[in-house]
């Protein structure tokens, strides 16, 4: 395992631990404004200190507590959206690749072409704006349903290579049904690239959720998400930079972590590199 992979894996583990156990370690309520200790004499948020390790936000709530709850939301959305995208993308890719040139393939690939022609964030924002109420569930479904296109392309290309290989022909000659071949022989062989793509995709989903929340199309307050925390801090950047810096750094680190991990996995799973 390369050093970069190790760094990536470490970051991912730390963030996961922070998301799972972080909220347990702060005594502050992420939703409660502290009008006594969380506010400066000029009625502005207080910076990092003994009571509030990361300072308070513009409503005088503990930043650390909100960052931890935000980590849960961000990671949950990132992981679930990626799962949806991977399942749909994998299935579409395998089917399209297997039935190359047939009607199913043509239809699926045109759908993917049309989808890829739109900027990803634009679709997500349009959907986010169209939905009357945005909850974590609508967000990860939206992200998942729009994030599978690239995955499908990649998997299809891999399947095109596979389906002419000898072991597939052998399976067919033995009289195995198509579903069985797809499940038992094709899927395991595309699993490697699929895992790599989805790891990187987690990073993209976290970023997409941040952008959505930053633009106000994300989850409604007071639920903290990193993107919305970033948005809430922007007016105060000159006077209380910690409000934006904490979620900003969190987003940066988690994206970096998942990307490094993804790259490491790609190298590890690529047979030609062994």
């Amino acid at each position, binding site marked *: 395992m390369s050093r970069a992979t190790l760094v990536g894996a470490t970051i991912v583990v730390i963030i996961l631990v922070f998301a799972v156990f972080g909220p347990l370690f702060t005594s502050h309520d992420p*939703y*409660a*404004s502290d*009008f006594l200790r969380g*506010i400066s004499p*000029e*009625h*502005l948020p207080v910076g990092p200190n003994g009571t509030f390790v990361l300072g308070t936000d*513009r*409503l*005088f709530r503990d930043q650390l507590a909100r960052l931890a709850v935000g980590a849960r939301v961000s990671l949950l959305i990132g992981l679930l959206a990626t799962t949806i995208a991977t399942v749909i993308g994998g299935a579409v890719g395998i089917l399209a690749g297997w039935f190359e040139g047939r009607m199913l393939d043509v239809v699926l690939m045109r759908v993917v072409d049309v989808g890829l022609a739109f900027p990803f964030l634009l679709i997500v924002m349009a959907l986010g*704006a169209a939905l*009357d*109420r945005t909850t974590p569930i609508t967000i990860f479904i939206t992200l998942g349903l729009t994030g599978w296109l690239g995955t499908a392309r990649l998997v299809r290309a891999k399947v095109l290579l596979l389906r002419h290989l000898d072991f597939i022909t052998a399976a067919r000659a033995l009289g195995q049904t198509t579903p069985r071949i797809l499940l038992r022989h094709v899927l395991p062989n595309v699993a490697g690239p699929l895992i790599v793509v989805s790891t990187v995709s987690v990073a993209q989903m976290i970023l997409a959720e941040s952008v959505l929340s930053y633009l*106000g199309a994300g989850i*409604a*307050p*007071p639920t903290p998400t990193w993107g919305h925390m970033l948005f*809430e801090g922007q*007016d*105060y950047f*000159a*006077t*209380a930079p910690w409000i934006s810096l904490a979620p900003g750094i969190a987003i940066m680190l988690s994206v970096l972590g998942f990307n490094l991990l993804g790259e490491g996995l790609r190298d590890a799973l690529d047979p030609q590199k062994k």
Partner: protein
Amino acid sequence: MTVASFGDIRAIDPANVGDGLVPQILEALFAGLIDYDHDGNIVADLAERWITGDDGKTFRFFLRHGVRFHDGEELSADDVKRSVERALHPSAPNPYASYFEPIVGYEDFVAGKANELEGVQAEGRYVVTFRLKNPDVTFLPTLAMPVLRPVCKSAGHRYTDTWQPCGAGPFKLEPKGWEHGRQVTVVRHDGYFKPGLPYLDGVRFLFRVNQTSQRFRFTSGELDILADFLAPDLVKFQADPRWKPFGAYHAEHQIAGEAMNTEMAPFDNVEVRRAVAAAIDREQIRLVRAANLRVADQPVPPDVAGHDDSLRGQRFDYEAALEHMKRAGYPYDPVTKTGGYPHVIPYVVYKQGLAEFTAQVLAQQLARIGLRIEIRVVNYPTFLAIRGRRGQSAFGPGSWTQDYPEAQSFLEPLFHSKSIAGEDSNNWSYYKNLRLDALLDQAKRELDDRKRKAIYKEAQQIIIDDAPWAFTYYYRGYTQWQPYVRNYRVHPMWTHEMSRVWLDRAERPGGAR
């Protein structure tokens, strides 16, 4: 002189005052028969003086002689009548037309049954008479708004949106002086009727400049006046002794509160509304933007006639709030945190406004009496549509800015039952109280200030106790000007009124411009 704003304007025409930013530009371009002075008093302007009939229904305005429009023509009584009819004609997209409903013949004119407005007549060249159906205390305050101000003959008898603005104000708009979405440049009107005024050569109004950019352009000397602040920037300016002498708060004429729909559960129960009014710790809400907000306890803001310090206003009283919840049938036990209203109440708020933040504090406070709200953030047009549609939204932020500095400008649109509509309702609480309606109608006809104050007191007490709104804060803006800007005073109606302002070039950094 250059000022900037975050917002933008849609039209420059007295007959189409479509936004909150354009009145200051209209004030620069168009003079009216009467106007507000810097202390908020109604004073003669194009009219030299006026006489009110004994019945309170007739107003005779005597025009100054020799007043010149920007095109050089002399103002006449016919111009006044033509401008009034142009602004009130149904072809004009005039949101304020109905304010002039007290004028005799208004209905027939707006229905197209009459070719002229009977209640406005020119008597010779220099006298105009307005006749009202009933005595009406809102007439002079609304006439002093920009809506009916005289416009040049080029404006014609009917509204068109291609007209080049032309009036009798201290400044005039040059051809192509309005670059849409960017700026309006006005220059001195040499024929202005007040000798020697204005002092400035011109004023540039910039639009769509965000607050951060405004602050940097102000500190670098590119802007002469700064009135849009990010909250922390305002705190810094006020704390800085170099800037402190050159700043001032605007008049307080905006009320904000939580509008509760009296036709929808749980707010159809007056005890729940009273519980909300008592549960809100207004001091905490104020701290969300302490430099601009002041705690409110009644609907009429402090700088508006009818504000009454002797009222028993709404205030934070936690025990009383719990008691009201109990009487409403939703007792809540703060120790075990059980009880309260069993359903979650949606609270609709618009994106990226102050209300998005005050709502989060409100949610914390109401949770303590057993009311759970769920904040739903929508875009601003959606918010307006939902709030103004009957039966759509139970709860949400309300805010109202005066059109003229009189209690009626708040109480009638927000709480009179005639302001209830199926769509675009101004009465967001859909509040109906016949006693209140009668009081407001009576106050409108009452010309005696003392008696009117007593009526408003009773009316406001009803609103405070019935709590269709829980009042939270009065918003007050702030203006910061450069040390070399002289004679500048924040105007209570138009914010920036520039006719007597001048720039001390010697002190201006970088020399004359």
